[in-house]
């Protein structure tokens, strides 16, 4: 008999397609997992509105769970509100990001109300120097920004705080 914790354990193996070091559980986008009469209900929240990985994640989650509860027995609902924030990435997720070479987002969602922001330098995930600068707020995926380390001179990506 499959239990909710089996399902959650299974979701820990489903990787984010764009940052494969993180599972969907580490990312904090799985809002709830329920099991009723053999039917599995999952609530997912998108990270970014236009994130092209959203549909892929939904498919991966569905396929992983169907292996446990059977084809056609998984219902996935998209929940927008309250909106996902980088604060929901687990502590383990933050560690995995850094090990993967992506500077993790600072804890505490930014509440920026000025259009002219002040950028706090992030620590370089390679040499830990905080002598770094932001190159661009927009990177290879919607969730990342581009930075560079002024000590080891390596460019690096940072997970954007939202």
């Amino acid at each position: 008999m499959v239990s909710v914790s089996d399902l959650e354990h299974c979701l820990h193996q489903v990787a984010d397609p764009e940052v494969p070091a993180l599972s969907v559980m580490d990312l904090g986008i799985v809002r709830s997992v329920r099991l009723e009469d053999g039917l599995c209900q999952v609530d997912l929240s998108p990270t970014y509105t236009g994130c092209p990985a959203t549909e892929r994640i939904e498919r991966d989650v569905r396929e992983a769970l169907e292996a446990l509860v059977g084809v056609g027995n998984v219902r996935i609902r998209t929940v927008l509100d309250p909106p996902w924030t980088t604060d929901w990435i687990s502590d383990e997720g933050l560690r995995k990001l850094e090990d993967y070479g992506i500077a993790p987002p600072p804890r505490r969602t930014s509440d920026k109300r000025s259009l002219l922001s002040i950028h706090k330098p992030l620590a370089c995930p390679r040499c830990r120097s905080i002598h770094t600068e932001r190159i661009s707020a927009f990177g290879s995926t919607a969730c990342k920004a581009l930075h560079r380390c002024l000590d080891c001179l390596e460019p690096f990506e940072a997970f954007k705080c939202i």
Partner: protein
Amino acid sequence: MKWDTCDASVQYLLHLGDDALILGHRLSEWCGHGPILEEDIALSNLALDLVGLARQYYQLAAQRIGNGMTEDRIAYWRSDREFRNHVLVEQPNGDFGDTMARQFYFDAFHFLQLEALQHSSDIELAAIARKAIKETTYHAQHSSEWVVRLGDGTDESRARITASLAKFWPFTSELFEPSSVDRAAHAAGWGPDVASLRGPWLDLVQEVLEQAELQLPEGHAKLLRGKSGIHSESLGFLLAEMQSLPRAYPDATW
């Protein structure tokens, strides 16, 4: 389908969604043509966010229309007269300074609009706004920083951003002139009184222009009615390109 007689909440969603789709499409035209790689990526990211936002509005509108309506039908099978976006967002990209000036004016407006929509009495609309404002904050910072960088840069960059800001200035008055749908939405508690956003918008714009050591452009407002379907000729060309594939191959799927 009679778009101008459908439910008022649907018409309001089209107002909001059309701004996001048309500006998102304009920005996507920069993909592969950005002045530097980082900006090429940034503009494509902005486009992605805005098209994603348009999809949220259209999906909700389609659900409320029912009868098998889809987001794609809303995006690809309406003519220019049936689009409800502001005339500002359909304006051609021009050079990078033009694109940043257009974006800067719109981002500041969009930020204030979403701030108000977070408290909409339409809870599904409020949920979309609470999500989108986080992304739009990044957009507004990006375009503001470019206005400062160009304004406070070389003589050339300063002259060009000054010209770009002046060029789009007359289009900004439409943002604060309520359409009949805006009025209905405000009365129902769905959205802000757009006229009341003008003051806070000017404050945001002025704060950035001061930093850039630029003056607020002067010039007369244009009388524009994009929100009633009266557009500039640019929109027709944009739609012809954007809609050509689904219209030529109506059964095409990804």
